[in-house]
């Protein structure tokens, strides 16, 4: 991958300079008026593959993450116009990098920041290049950023850690990661999370300003911070996957595109950090969960419960990949973390021919372990379900009632949902119906709500 077989020259400037730092987030789809759909889709495909490496390389060269993201977006907007008019260049990456680099130089000029970064960008630097990983510009004056294949992994990792930096609010980390690492546009992110486009744009703009204000360096976190920082990265991917696997509102039970994006990012992370167990554990959890997607919705899109799912419809390729990833997480020999444990629970389901024949005893033990490394009321509720399966509904109900008494899941539909289920199994029909109806009133997902109401109605 070296941008040396193309002149890298884009077409003429598409119009007045929009300036950098506006953060308006020209994604693949804003200037669509002048751009044909096939061209837009082709540019989007290149962008999905390349955006992380492009933004990463630019951030390293400019030392300015926010600027890198801005100029990369401008290059993308320019590509949309220019490629749909003149066709795609022979070397799309080189084109995007060269265009973004020119935009970065313009921005530095505007800031009158005639410092060494400007000199480097403008191609004046020949000495000290080894230190920064920069090479001298091509002798024939081609304006390209030197592309150092040995730095790409570190650039992408630094990008991931920056986008998931603890100075940012969690929802900003999610938006920024999807934008800069996964290469999604603001429109795509907004659609996925059912929020208005300006909300996503504002989140991303604010996030970039926060990173600049906090002087977050564009670098891999130092060794002593790395594990804690990795936790933040994993939790962002987990949020993305969960959102894709069960929409919290609206009617789509599955937004598999978003879940798939999380799978793809987890695969990347596991490939870049092969000696860390938790990325493998997270990937295993995603693969094993996604394996059930084909069976989770019925012919009319209604939700199908685990016990009613046709297990032959699970995606066995995904199951196998999940089990392999779980094996790798375990083989590293540092034990399983929270994601690895959840993956181990998913693996119990994946290997079972039916709900009744599932190893619930093992699942109870895994939930106990999970409750110790990552205690949460939801884990406790899941443990209650597993206990009910392993040793009867009364034992499960005791745990649920304890949760209820301590009010640790206020307003959640999950608790009355499980409680209603267990009461029904104990033959306490009237109480069960009331709980299930309460759960339905609280549930924001229409399909899940329908399942709860169906269960309540079936109790007569």
């Amino acid at each position: 991958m070296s941008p040396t077989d193309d002149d890298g020259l884009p077409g003429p400037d598409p119009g007045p300079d929009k300036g950098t730092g506006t953060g308006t987030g020209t994604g693949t789809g804003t200037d669509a008026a002048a751009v044909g759909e096939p061209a837009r889709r082709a540019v989007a495909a290149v962008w999905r593959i390349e955006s992380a490496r492009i933004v990463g390389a630019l951030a390293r060269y400019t030392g300015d993450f926010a600027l890198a993201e801005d100029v990369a977006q401008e290059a993308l907007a320019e590509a949309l116009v220019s490629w749909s008019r003149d066709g795609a260049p022979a070397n799309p990456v080189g084109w995007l990098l060269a265009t973004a680099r020119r935009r970065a130089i313009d921005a530095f000029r505007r800031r009158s920041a005639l410092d060494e970064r400007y000199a480097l960008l403008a191609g004046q630097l020949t000495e000290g290049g080894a230190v920064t990983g920069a090479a001298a510009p091509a002798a024939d004056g081609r304006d390209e950023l030197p592309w150092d294949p040995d730095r790409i992994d570190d650039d992408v990792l630094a990008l991931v850690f920056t986008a998931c930096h603890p100075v940012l609010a969690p929802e900003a980390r999610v938006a920024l990661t999807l934008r800069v690492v996964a290469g999604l546009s603001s429109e795509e992110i907004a659609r996925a999370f059912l929020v208005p486009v300006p909300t996503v744009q504002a989140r991303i703009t604010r996030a970039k300003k926060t990173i600049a204000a906090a002087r977050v360096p564009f670098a891999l976190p130092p060794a002593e911070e790395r594990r804690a920082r990795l936790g933040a990265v994993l939790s962002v991917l987990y949020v993305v996957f969960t959102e894709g696997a069960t929409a919290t509102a609206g009617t789509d039970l599955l937004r598999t595109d978003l879940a798939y994006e999380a799978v793809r990012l987890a695969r990347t992370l596991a490939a870049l950090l092969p000696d860390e167990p938790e990325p493998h554990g997270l990937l295993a959890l995603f693969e094993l969960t996604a394996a059930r997607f084909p069976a989770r919705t019925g012919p009319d899109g209604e939700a199908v419960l685990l016990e009613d799912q046709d297990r032959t419809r699970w995606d066995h390729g995904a199951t196998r990949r999940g089990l392999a990833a779980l094996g790798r997480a375990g083989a590293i020999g540092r034990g399983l973390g929270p994601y690895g444990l959840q993956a181990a629970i998913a693996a119990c389901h994946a290997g079972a021919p039916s709900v009744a024949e599932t190893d619930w005893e093992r699942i109870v033990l895994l939930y106990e372990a999970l409750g110790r490394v990552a205690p949460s009321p939801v884990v406790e509720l899941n443990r209650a379900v597993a206990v009910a399966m392993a040793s009867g509904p009364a034992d499960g109900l005791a745990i649920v009632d304890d949760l209820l008494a301590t009010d640790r899941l206020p307003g959640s539909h999950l608790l009355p949902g499980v409680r209603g289920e267990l009461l029904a199994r104990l033959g306490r029909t009237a109480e069960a119906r009331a709980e299930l109806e309460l759960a339905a009133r609280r549930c924001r997902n229409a399909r899940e709500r329908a399942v709860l109401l169906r269960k309540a109605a079936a109790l007569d």
Partner: protein
Amino acid sequence: MAKYMLIMRATDETLAKMMETPFEQMLETVGRFNEELIRAGVLIAAEGLDDPSQGVVVDFAGEQPVVTDGPYGETKELFGGFYLIDVASKEEAVEWAKRLPALPGSKCEVRRVPSIDEFPQDNEWVALERAWRERTGQL
């Protein structure tokens, strides 16, 4: 997300070129590309085929199949191997295909692989195949 197969097709010219290329160098070139696919989280499977002269052709032109040794008389577009990738769109599959370290004269066909979910679920043969996939953990 959808699975696409990148079907590599080679010609005599490509094969001759391949013979000239040092094996180590070829391994590195292909390995680097594979690594890109892995890093991007899209690679599902990949296989390459042995020397076509070692193959056999079964021809169904007549009433009975006729078996002959070696490749076709004219090696216009020999199937040489495949990648199975998991991507968001056809355009993304094409974009990866464009990056193949392919030798002059070769072609790559990009074809979507339908999921078994797209077949009639009530058909007994589809059900049997599902059961086999489940038993053996096939893709």
